[in-house]
């Protein structure tokens, strides 16, 4: 039951893009075509989940027992950078076409606020899923990371679809490009606000 709460809360109620404002740069940059948006979301989903698990274990078994919490930021970002490198190498061997399609955006996942944001949130924030406010366990953290990235993909894909439509419409000159995209996102965010209070 608790996992269902985590999933609904992370995808809709506290959507990482529309409510927590993490991962906006690629959101605005990659979403003008549906195909690149889908590819990007898949890659980000994979990196977020893997990074959260690894940083969680690193924090629990190395940083906390030795009182090294102040090294969290450095350690986490290095882990993420290393992971993204690894994903690049593996992807180049396993699926060169996907590697080509993602292009520059793959190494840019390192600087995606969402990855570091989720990693830090999971080890510092006390959640109230199913009872008292508590720090997440490993299973809950993994589900949280997966659900969060599904929420990311959902918002990305919805937005990419909207932008493809926008491109064919008459938009005032000053609004073309990012401004009209931002106003569209704000209406999306308003819609998602309607989910608040469900969980």
């Amino acid at each position: 039951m608790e996992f269902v709460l985590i999933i609904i809360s992370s995808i809709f109620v506290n959507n990482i893009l529309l409510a927590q404002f993490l991962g906006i740069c690629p959101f605005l940059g990659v979403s003008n075509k549906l195909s690149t948006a889908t590819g990007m979301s898949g890659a980000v989903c994979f990196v977020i989940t893997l990074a959260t698990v690894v940083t969680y274990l690193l924090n629990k078994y190395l940083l906390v027992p030795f009182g090294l919490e102040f090294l969290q930021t450095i350690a986490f970002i290095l882990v993420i950078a290393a992971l993204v490198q690894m994903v690049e190498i593996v992807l180049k061997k396993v699926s060169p076409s996907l590697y080509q399609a993602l292009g520059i955006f793959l190494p840019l996942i390192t600087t995606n606020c969402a990855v570091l944001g989720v990693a830090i949130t999971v080890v510092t924030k006390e959640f109230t899923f199913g009872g008292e406010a508590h720090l997440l366990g490993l299973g809950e953290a993994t589900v949280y990371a997966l659900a969060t990235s599904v929420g990311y993909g959902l918002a990305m894909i919805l937005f990419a679809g909207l932008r493809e439509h926008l491109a064919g419409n008459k938009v005032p000159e000053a609004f073309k490009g990012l401004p009209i995209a931002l106003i569209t996102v704000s209406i999306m965010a308003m819609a998602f606000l309607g989910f608040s209070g469900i969980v």
Partner: protein
Amino acid sequence: MANKLSLITKGFIKDNPTFVLVLGMCPTLATTTSAMNGLEMGLATMFVLILSNIVISLIAPVVPDKVHIPVYIVVIATFVTVLQLLMQAYVPTVYETLGLFIPLIVVNCIVLGRAEAFANKNSCLDSALDGIGIGLGFTLSLTVIGIVREVLGSGSVFGWKFIAGDGILAFVMAPGAFMVLGYLMVLFNKYLKKQ
């Protein structure tokens, strides 16, 4: 001398990180719920930007090309952690307000972007001035967005309330952030970015 001064002023309009370069969107949207918060976030980022620009411009000649990205990231992360610790110790209320977005300065595209694009090719003084310029531009943008959101959303400016009760709450929440940024970008593009 005019050259040095232009390094600072270009961050305000020509190379404004928020409205022109469109970098650092995450903290821009999340921390501008009030003018004060926007100002604080901008200054915090500027602190890291200036220091990391200085250090990176000094060590860039000796760092081998293959590891330069991880090295820059470690340097930036170090300054971010120093900032975190200092804020936690001496200004805990600001630390609580900005929350997650202080460590997220590490992945703020502005900081790594300026290191890659400017600091590793220029002198220490120029890099410092560039940091000040871009940092000030960022701080100004955040403060302006914060002022608009606070005036419309809470009916106050820098905490000084001029109406009784609440404003249009949507502006201090998620939708307002995107909307204010979008409209301000329109105004910026139309009236300020004439070049």
